[in-house]
């Protein structure tokens, strides 16, 4: 994702802002900061974030329907048009030195007056026997990535969220049968997606059920075991039970977090550390949507711009 034309980042240069993350919140922040003529750098572990694995996005204003990867391509075109450098890397430490922050990864060292943490979240794991063993061999966390491998197969989607419903709908295009296995009575999908699930003849919901083990052999997944000991034969398991915030770096640097581990921000996307902002899934906002993440990122850019005005005379 590194834009060769923009050259290597100068390790001695103090940027106005370094944005950590590769999803909509990070890139929304980057676009606004660049338009404020701030000197910025974006460093992300996963370009596109979780939304890149979403097969369809139908609630991003002005775009009726688009796939997650396509939406992130549109973001890429936008950041390229503003000559924003994006580096694929993971920062492992942030340290305050004099008036700026020093960020280090295994591949580089960077300096900035402000930092926006938009490090997103990571798919939650079930933590049951067989899950790790069969990951990549029938256990998946990305229907868009792996759905096509399961043409005419029987699949289980674990979870009852809107994301789980959308995964099931996508997988039903390839699979012979898709079972949504949910621990509660009624799936929590948006009404439009719930209706699509109910109308799809390939999808069946198994409610009030947990899975306690994933079984297989040397070729991959063969079955899941329910909490009533039933052995239920499937060829693949797609796990969609929510996500956990990637906030370890923030915590290590003293950012306040809530009981879910999300970074606590105010209405200006400020954390408790002056000069450090947070946005998107890693922050404590109640709604985890691309559009709300973009909004928080944009607010962080605005707030940082104001902050920099007070410490830099050229603004």
């Amino acid at each position, binding site marked *: *994702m*590194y834009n*060769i*034309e923009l*050259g*290597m980042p100068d*390790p001695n240069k103090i940027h106005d802002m370094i944005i950590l993350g590769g999803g909509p919140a990070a890139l929304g922040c980057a676009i606004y900061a660049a338009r404020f003529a701030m000197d910025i750098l974006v460093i992300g*572990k*996963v*370009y*596109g974030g979780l939304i*890149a*694995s979403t097969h369809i996005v139908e609630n991003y204003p002005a775009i009726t329907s688009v796939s*997650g*990867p396509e939406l*992130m*391509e549109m973001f890429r075109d936008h950041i390229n048009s503003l000559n924003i450098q994006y*580096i*694929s*890397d*993971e920062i492992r430490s942030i340290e305050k030195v004099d008036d700026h922050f020093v960020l*280090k*990864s*295994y*591949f*580089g*060292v960077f300096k900035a007056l402000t930092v926006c943490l938009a490090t997103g979240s990571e798919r939650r794991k079930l933590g049951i026997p067989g899950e790790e063993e069969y*990951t*990549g*061999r*029938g256990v*998946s*966390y*990305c229907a*868009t*990535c*792996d759905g*096509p*491998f*399961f043409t005419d197969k029987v699949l289980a989607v674990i979870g009852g969220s809107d994301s789980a419903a959308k995964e099931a709908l996508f997988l039903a295009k390839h699979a012979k049968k898709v079972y949504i296995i949910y621990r509660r009575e009624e799936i929590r999908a948006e009404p439009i997606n719930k209706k699509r699930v109910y109308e799809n003849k390939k999808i069946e919901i198994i409610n009030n059920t947990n899975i306690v083990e994933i079984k297989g052999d*040397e*070729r*991959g997944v063969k079955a899941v075991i329910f909490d009533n000991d039933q052995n239920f034969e499937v060829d*693949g398991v797609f796990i969609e039970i929510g996500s956990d915030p990637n906030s370890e770096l923030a915590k290590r640097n003293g950012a306040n977090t809530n009981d879910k581990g999300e970074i606590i921000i105010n209405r200006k996307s400020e954390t408790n550390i002056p000069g450090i902002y947070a946005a998107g899934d890693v922050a404590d906002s109640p709604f985890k949507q691309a559009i709300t993440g973009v909004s928080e990122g944009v607010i962080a850019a605005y707030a940082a711009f104001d902050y920099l005005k007070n410490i830099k005379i050229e603004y």
Partner: protein
Amino acid sequence: MAKLTKHVKLKVFTSQRIQPDGSKVKVCMDCGQFMALLRIYEENSNGKLTFEELSIDNNPEFAKRYDVQRVPTVLFIDDKEREVIRYLAAPQGGEIQPFVQAIFAFAGAPNYYEATIKQNLNRIKPSTIKVMVTNSCPYCPQVATIANLFAIASDGKIRTIIIDITANPDIAQYYDAAGVPYTIVNDQKAISGMVGADVILRSLIGGDIRVQY
């Protein structure tokens, strides 16, 4: 491609056959479209980029010399005749970007991972990174880019093979891969899903990364 800083020549193995009437036909379905794309790159490179098309049917001695059994196969061979990157794929969609980026880095464009790779090079044994991808996988381009840039920075110690498993399902089956990206270091450590540069480097080293800024 006109911005390439030095000349790059890549070998592309296809299955072009010469008919009795002298006309040429490509047996491989992806090869025709892929070669057409590569010719556009070539034409827009001001002579900096050349693709040498070799048919495994018409040039079996070259196929044997470079151990090529599948088409299309693209080889990045360095000045010392070492294979740096092998594509068992006709990159399309999101996979085009890492392919183009590899061409630029191969021509000497700045390589973000180079300094750390060089600092740890004496701890890396001659290695092969295989990255299994599909053209529609959203996270594959990032892993392919990292693996390609590692190989280019490694002074011949690391070889990367990018495998489109839609076109080569037997390879996916051999490695029991039912998901992408699927990264295998030295035919031992399989890493499923999106993986960062530090994780791949640790697999290559077999221990912690040492870095001095």
